[in-house]
C-alpha cells in the first residue's frame, strides 16, 4: 500500500482542552481489519514496532510512526511467534523474544550492522517480557519459573555500542544525562 494511503488511513484527531493529538497506527490489512499488538516506540518516537499476523504466525513489524512506511528486518522473518519488541533511542536495536525449538529466546537485531545477537539468560527461567533501555546499556527481563514471576536487569555495555540521543555524552554522565 502506498505510503500516502497509509498516512490517510491514520486517523488524526485533536482533542480540545488537554491538547492531546491522536493517531491510529497505519493499518496494513484490508480496511485495517488486522490485529496489531504489543506496541513499542523508539526513544525518539520516530519508529514503532508491533506484532501482526503473517501467514498465521505472530511476527514483528517495524514502521516509521508518521508515514507508516515498513522498514526491513533482516533476521526476523522466522522463529515465530515473536513477542515483546523493544527499541533503542534511534531504533538501531530491536530486542524481542523469538521461538527457537521449544525455547523462548531473547535476541537483539542490530539494524546498523545487520547482526542478530542472541542473549543467553543465566538459569532456566523463561523470558516473558523485555524492556531495552533507550541507550541500549541495560535490558530488563520479566522471567517466569515454576509459576512465579520476577524481574532482572542485565548490563549490555560489553555487548552493544550505546544508541544515544543526539548530543548525549558517550560516557561519564550516566544514562539520560544531557551534556
Amino acid at each position, binding site marked *: 500500500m502506498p505510503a500516502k494511503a497509509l498516512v490517510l488511513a491514520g486517523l488524526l484527531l485533536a482533542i480540545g482542552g488537554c491538547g492531546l493529538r491522536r493517531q491510529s497506527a497505519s493499518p496494513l490489512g484490508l480496511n485495517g481489519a488486522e490485529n496489531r*499488538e504489543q506496541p513499542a516506540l523508539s526513544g525518539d518516537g520516530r519508529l514503532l514496532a508491533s506484532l501482526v499476523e503473517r501467514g498465521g504466525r505472530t511476527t514483528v513489524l517495524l514502521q516509521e510512526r508518521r508515514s507508516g512506511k515498513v522498514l526491513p528486518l533482516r533476521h526476523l522473518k522466522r522463529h515465530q511467534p515473536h513477542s515483546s519488541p523493544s527499541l533503542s533511542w534511534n531504533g538501531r536495536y530491536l530486542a524481542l523474544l523469538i521461538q527457537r525449538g521449544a525455547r523462548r529466546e531473547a535476541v537483539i537485531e542490530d539494524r546498523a550492522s545487520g547482526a542478530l*545477537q542472541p542473549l543467553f539468560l543465566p538459569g532456566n527461567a523463561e523470558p516473558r517480557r523485555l524492556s531495552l*533501555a*533507550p541507550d541500549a546499556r*541495560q535490558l530488563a*527481563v520479566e522471567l517466569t519459573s515454576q509459576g512465579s514471576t520476577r*524481574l*532482572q536487569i542485565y*548490563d549490555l555495555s560489553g555487548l552493544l555500542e550505546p544508541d544515544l540521543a543526539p548530543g548525549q555524552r558517550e560516557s561519564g554522565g550516566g544514562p539520560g544525562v544531557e551534556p
Partner: protein
Amino acid sequence: MIRLLLSAGATLLLLSGCAGGRLRPLPGLNQQLNQLGQGRSPSLAGGWLALIAARGNGRVQVQLIDVNRRNPVPLPGLNRPDALPISVAVDQNAERLAVVRQREDRTELVLYKRSLQATQLLPMEPAGVPRQVSFSADGRVLAVEVSRGGLWQIDLLEIP
C-alpha cells in the same frame, strides 16, 4: 608476530560477537527487585525502571526504581487501593508514567505527572479497552494497545 596476534585477536572478537552474549546481571539491583515481590511489565528509560510488583500480602502496585541508586522512589497519589495496574511505561526523566489499570468495572489509561503528583484520565476515542502502553523516551508519544470492535489496535497519542 604482533600483526599476527592482532589479527587473531580481531578474529576472536568477531566470532564472539556472532556467537551471542551471556548477559551480566546487576546483583545489587536484582536483589532489590526481588525484595519488591513478583515483578512484571518492566519499562526502562534514562536510569529509571517502572514495574508492577505484587507483594505477598496481595497488594499490586506500580513501583519506580532509580536504577543507579538502586532504590524505590515514592509515587504519591498514583497507587489506589481500588485499582489494579495492568501495564506501565515511564519516560526518561521519570516525570511521566502511563498506567493501564482496572478500576471497579472498567479498564482505564491514566497519565501520572510526578512533579504534580497528579493523574489525568486519557479516554480511549473511539471507545475501547486499553491493555498495554509504551512511551517514547522523550515522553512525547504514547502507544496504546486497545481492544476495539473485536480487534487489537494501536493508538498513538502525542502529549504536549
